[in-house]
């Protein structure tokens, strides 16, 4: 992993905290997906927790990179956010139709 220039202690602490938070959200989301009872709650958990987790990880990483890389990372986050939303909606609709049919 490439490491940028020197960082201050505060920045390091802050970025580590953000990274850890992101990781926590990811883990929470994954556990939820495995443990939650039905599709809707799973979807809910996964999309929200993962979007948030990714956001905080990217925020944590931003301390290490230059502005151009940061911009790209933000763009990636936005894309994931949007596509996560759309796919979550799609899946929910699919579940709904299936439920209605049954």
């Amino acid at each position, binding site marked *: 992993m490439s490491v940028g220039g020197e960082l201050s202690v505060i920045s390091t602490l802050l970025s580590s905290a953000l990274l850890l938070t992101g990781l926590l959200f990811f883990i929470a989301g994954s556990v939820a997906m495995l443990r939650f009872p039905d599709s809707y709650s799973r979807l809910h958990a996964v999309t929200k927790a993962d979007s948030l987790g990714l956001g905080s990880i990217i925020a944590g990483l931003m301390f290490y990179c230059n502005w151009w890389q940061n911009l790209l990372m933000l763009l990636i986050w936005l*894309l994931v956010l*949007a*596509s996560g939303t*759309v796919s979550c*909606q*799609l899946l929910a*609709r699919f579940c709904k139709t299936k439920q209605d049919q049954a």
Partner: protein
Amino acid sequence: MSLLLFDVLLCGLLLALALASVLSRQLSHAVILYIAFGLLMALTWARLAAPDLALAEAAIGAGLTGALCFTALARQGKLAASPTLSWQQRCWPALFVLVTLFGLLLLVLQLPAKPGPLPALVMQQLAASGVSHPVTAVLLNFRSWDTLLELLVLLLALLGTLQVAPAPVYQSSWVLSRSWSQLLAPLIIVLAGYLLWAGAHQPGGAFQAGALLAAGAVVLKLNHQLNWLAWRNIWVRFFAIAGLTVFVAAVLTAWLLSGALAEPVWLRWPPELAKYIILLIEIFATLAIAITLTLLVVAEQPATPLSLARQEDDEAADG
């Protein structure tokens, strides 16, 4: 040390996912686990100094194969639970595989640690190849015959798939996903163009770009956009074979250009033109790969008599 830890973790996860995919109870789980495995594999390759391949694996290996597997699952209709196997059915193959594994381990650990002569040779000849990225040089100049055949394999898979493809099923698409896919499309085109252009000197190239384009096209196609993108359209057919056509045309041209020589050499690009020829081939190959991959995923029966499905369905309806 930390890198080694990372490696151990990576390898452990890879093995666990692969094993889980093979052993899982349900097919859909197997497919999901396989996709995860593919993504991790991409990461592994990035770790192993192969960013080209990481890109390709992420797009083709994990993404495309996963999509294909899911399509197949969906087309297969209702899934029966996997038949349970008795332990003899599992145990004896396992024993056999363990023995094989032992032998394989013995073998791969015997491989010499020093590389062969070819990397140095590639570097030595790179200047004459017309591109500065060695992988692209190998793909499109040193071993271009392999690449030509590989394009052919891809085309062939498409032909075979079209032959057995089912009749199209019409479903309504949802406004939000449609507009989202339309929003994504230009982004993907730009990205693909970048990858293609980058291939000349850094990781990237026709396959990665083609795969990316295909991903975009598949999304659009699933949202009932791009209705013209079907085998029955002659222009689609034309571009699907364009990669090969341009390749062959370039080969022939190069051959004729050097025809004055006593012994014309097959597949040799004139050094001063090599760069342009390779770029031309790559552009058309990207298009062809994109179209082919798209059609592979959303394969539906074409109107041309290439497919047997319709006539058979008619027969089935009669009977």
